[in-house]
C-alpha cells in the first residue's frame, strides 16, 4: 500500500471516529438536548460586560440584560476599558437610570477582554458571575435556562448557544450555519464532559470556581477557551444550555473574519501549549479535549495537504497534456478520459462527506428557529459545506505560523 493511501486512510479513520462519536452521542441523548434544570434556589448573579468603543451596540446589550427574567440577577457591571468613543456616557446614562447597572472604568486600557473582565470581577459579591460581550444580546429567558445546572455543586460553568444576527451576506449566512453546528456539537460534547469553551457572548461561572482558577488569563487570546480548560483541569464540570440563546454580530467581511479566526486559533494553540503536560493524562481534558483539539488541527492541515497536492497535480497534468496535445495535433479529450472506476478510497471519502452532511442538516434541524427543516437555503448549506469549510485549513496554517512568531494582537 502506498504511503499516501495509508495517510488518507488514517485521515478518514480519525474523521469517521469523531463523526461516529457525535452521531452516537446524539442518538443516545437526543431527548435530553433541550433539557433544562429547575434551580433548587435562586442564586445571586452579577453580569459583567467589558466594553471598549462599543457605542454602537452597548445600549442594546445592557437593555437585553435588564429585560432578563432571572430573579437572581443583582448587578450588571459594565466595564469601560477606557473607550475613546461615546460608550462611557451611554453606560453612565443607564447606570443613572437603573440601580442594577454599575459603571466601572479600568485605570488604563487593558488591551483585551480578559483584562476588563478580571477588573469587573473585583466588584462581584454574588454566588454566580456571568460575562457577556458588548455586542451580544441574550434572550429574556437565557440566564434562567442556564442557572439550574448549578444545582450540582460540581458544576463550575454553564455556557449558552450563540446565534448570529445582523447584516446578511454569504459570509454571515455561512457563519449562521457554523454557529448552529458549533452549538449543537458543543451540547453533544457536554454529554461527554468535554465542553472546551464557554463562549464570550454569554457564560455563567460559579464565583468560587472562578476565583479558584484566578479569573481569565490575560496573556491568552482566547480567554474563554483557556478558562474552560482551567475549570476542567481543576475537576469542575462544564455544561451547556442549548435553549439559552444569545445573539451576536459576526464579522461581515473576509478580512475581519480572517482576523477573528486567526485570534481564535492562535489562542487555541496558546491554550494547548499551556496545558501540554495534561496531554493524555487522566481526566477528560487530557484524554479527549486535548487530543480532539490536536487531531482537529492535524485533520485540517493534512486535509489541505491532500487536496492541494492532488489538485495541483491534476491541474498541472491537464495543462501539460492539453499543451502537448495541441502541439501534436491530437484530440484533447478521448473517450477513455470519461471512463470512471472509483477506488475504495473514493467511497470512503463519499461516505464521510455524506455523514458530515447528514450531521450538518441534523444540527441545523435542531435549531428549530424557523418552520423549515433547517432554516437555511440548500444553496447556503452547499456554500458552507464546500467553500466556507475549505477556507479553514489555510487559516490554520497561517495561525500556526503567527503563533510561532508570537502573535498577540487582540
Amino acid at each position, binding site marked *: 500500500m502506498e504511503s499516501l493511501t495509508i495517510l488518507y486512510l488514517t485521515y478518514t479513520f480519525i474523521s469517521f471516529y469523531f463523526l461516529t*462519536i457525535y452521531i452516537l*452521542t446524539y442518538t*443516545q*441523548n437526543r431527548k435530553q438536548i433541550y433539557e433544562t*434544570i429547575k434551580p433548587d434556589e435562586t442564586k445571586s448573579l452579577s453580569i459583567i460586560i467589558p466594553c471598549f468603543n462599543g457605542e454602537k451596540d452597548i445600549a442594546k446589550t445592557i437593555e437585553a440584560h435588564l429585560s432578563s427574567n432571572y430573579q437572581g440577577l443583582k448587578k450588571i457591571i459594565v466595564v469601560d476599558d477606557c473607550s475613546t468613543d461615546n460608550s462611557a456616557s451611554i453606560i453612565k446614562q443607564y447606570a443613572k437610570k437603573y440601580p442594577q447597572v454599575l459603571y466601572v472604568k479600568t485605570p488604563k486600557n487593558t488591551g483585551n477582554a480578559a483584562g476588563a473582565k478580571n477588573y469587573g470581577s473585583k466588584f462581584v459579591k454574588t454566588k454566580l458571575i456571568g460575562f457577556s460581550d458588548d455586542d451580544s444580546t441574550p434572550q429574556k429567558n437565557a440566564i434562567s435556562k442556564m442557572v439550574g445546572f448549578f444545582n450540582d455543586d460540581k458544576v463550575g460553568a454553564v455556557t449558552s448557544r450563540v446565534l448570529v444576527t445582523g447584516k446578511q451576506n454569504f459570509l454571515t449566512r455561512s457563519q449562521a450555519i457554523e454557529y448552529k453546528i458549533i452549538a449543537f456539537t458543543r451540547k453533544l460534547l457536554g454529554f461527554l464532559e468535554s465542553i472546551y469553551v464557554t463562549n464570550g457572548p454569554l457564560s455563567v461561572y460559579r464565583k468560587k470556581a472562578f476565583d479558584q482558577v484566578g479569573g481569565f488569563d490575560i496573556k491568552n487570546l482566547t480567554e474563554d477557551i483557556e478558562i474552560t480548560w482551567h475549570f476542567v483541569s481543576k475537576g469542575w464540570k462544564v455544561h451547556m444550555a442549548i435553549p439559552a440563546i444569545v445573539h451576536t454580530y459576526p464579522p461581515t467581511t473576509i478580512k475581519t473574519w480572517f482576523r477573528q479566526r486567526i485570534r481564535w486559533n492562535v489562542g487555541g494553540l496558546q491554550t494547548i501549549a499551556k496545558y501540554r503536560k495534561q496531554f493524555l493524562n487522566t481526566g477528560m481534558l487530557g484524554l479527549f479535549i486535548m487530543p480532539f483539539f490536536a487531531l482537529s488541527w492535524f485533520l485540517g492541515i493534512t486535509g489541505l495537504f491532500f487536496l492541494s497536492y492532488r489538485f495541483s497535480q491534476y491541474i*498541472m497534468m491537464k495543462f501539460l497534456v492539453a499543451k*502537448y496535445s495541441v502541439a501534436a495535433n491530437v*484530440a484533447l479529450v*478521448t473517450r477513455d478520459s470519461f471512463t470512471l472506476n472509483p477506488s*475504495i478510497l473514493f467511497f470512503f471519502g463519499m461516505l464521510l462527506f455524506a455523514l458530515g452532511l447528514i450531521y450538518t442538516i441534523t444540527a441545523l434541524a435542531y435549531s428549530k428557529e424557523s418552520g423549515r427543516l433547517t432554516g437555511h437555503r440548500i444553496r447556503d448549506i452547499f456554500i458552507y459545506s464546500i467553500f466556507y469549510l475549505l477556507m479553514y485549513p489555510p487559516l490554520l496554517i497561517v495561525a500556526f505560523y503567527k503563533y510561532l512568531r508570537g502573535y498577540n494582537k487582540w
Partner: protein
Amino acid sequence: MLKSKKHVFWEALIITIVIFLAGLFLGMLVETNNSNKISNFYLQSEISLSDATATSRLIENENLDCEMLKESNIRVADRIYEEAKLLELYEDSGKITDNMKLLHKKYDLLRALLWISNQESLSKCENYNMIVYLYDYNTEDTGKKATQNVWSKILLNIKSQNSDILLLPIAANQNLTTIEYLTEKYQVKQFPALVINNNQILYQLETAEPLLDLLN
C-alpha cells in the same frame, strides 16, 4: 440530572473499526474480482501469443504466408492492448492490494515475448511495421507523465489510421530481465522511447510526422 456517557468513545471506536474493516474487505473483494477478470483475459492472451509464436516458427521452416503471420501477430498485439487498457483502469482504482501491479508485469512480459517472437519474422516478411513503445512506469514526474500520455494518443491515432502496425507499449522499468536485456540490446538510453521496426529509436515525438517517415 445529566449523566455522562463516556462509553460512547469505545462504542464509536468499535463501530469505526468494523466499518473500516468491512470497507477494506469489500475493497479487497472488488480488487480481487478485477484481478481475476484480468487473469482470465491474460490466460486467453497467453494462448493467442503461443499460437502466434508457433506460427512464427512455422514460417521459418515451411515458408508460410507472411500475410497470415502479420494478421496473427497484430491480432494478438491488439488484443493485449485492449486488455491492458482495462488493466490500467483497474490499476488506477486498486489501492489496497498489489494484484494489478503484478498483472501489469505479466502483461509487459507477454508483450516482450511478442516483441522477441516478431524479431525474425519482421525482418523476413517486411509486410508490417512494429512500434515498441517503452515508457517509464514508475515516474512521479508530471511532465514525463503528460508526455507519455500524449505519446499514447499519437500512437493510437497512427494505429487507427494504419492497420499494418503492430503496437507494443511496454513498461520499461519493471525489473524484468528480458525487457532489460532488450533495451540494452537496442541501446535505449532513456524513457519514453520508441523502437521502430527494431532498427530506429525515437526519443522525441512532438507530432506524428517523424514517426510516419520511419515506417515502411
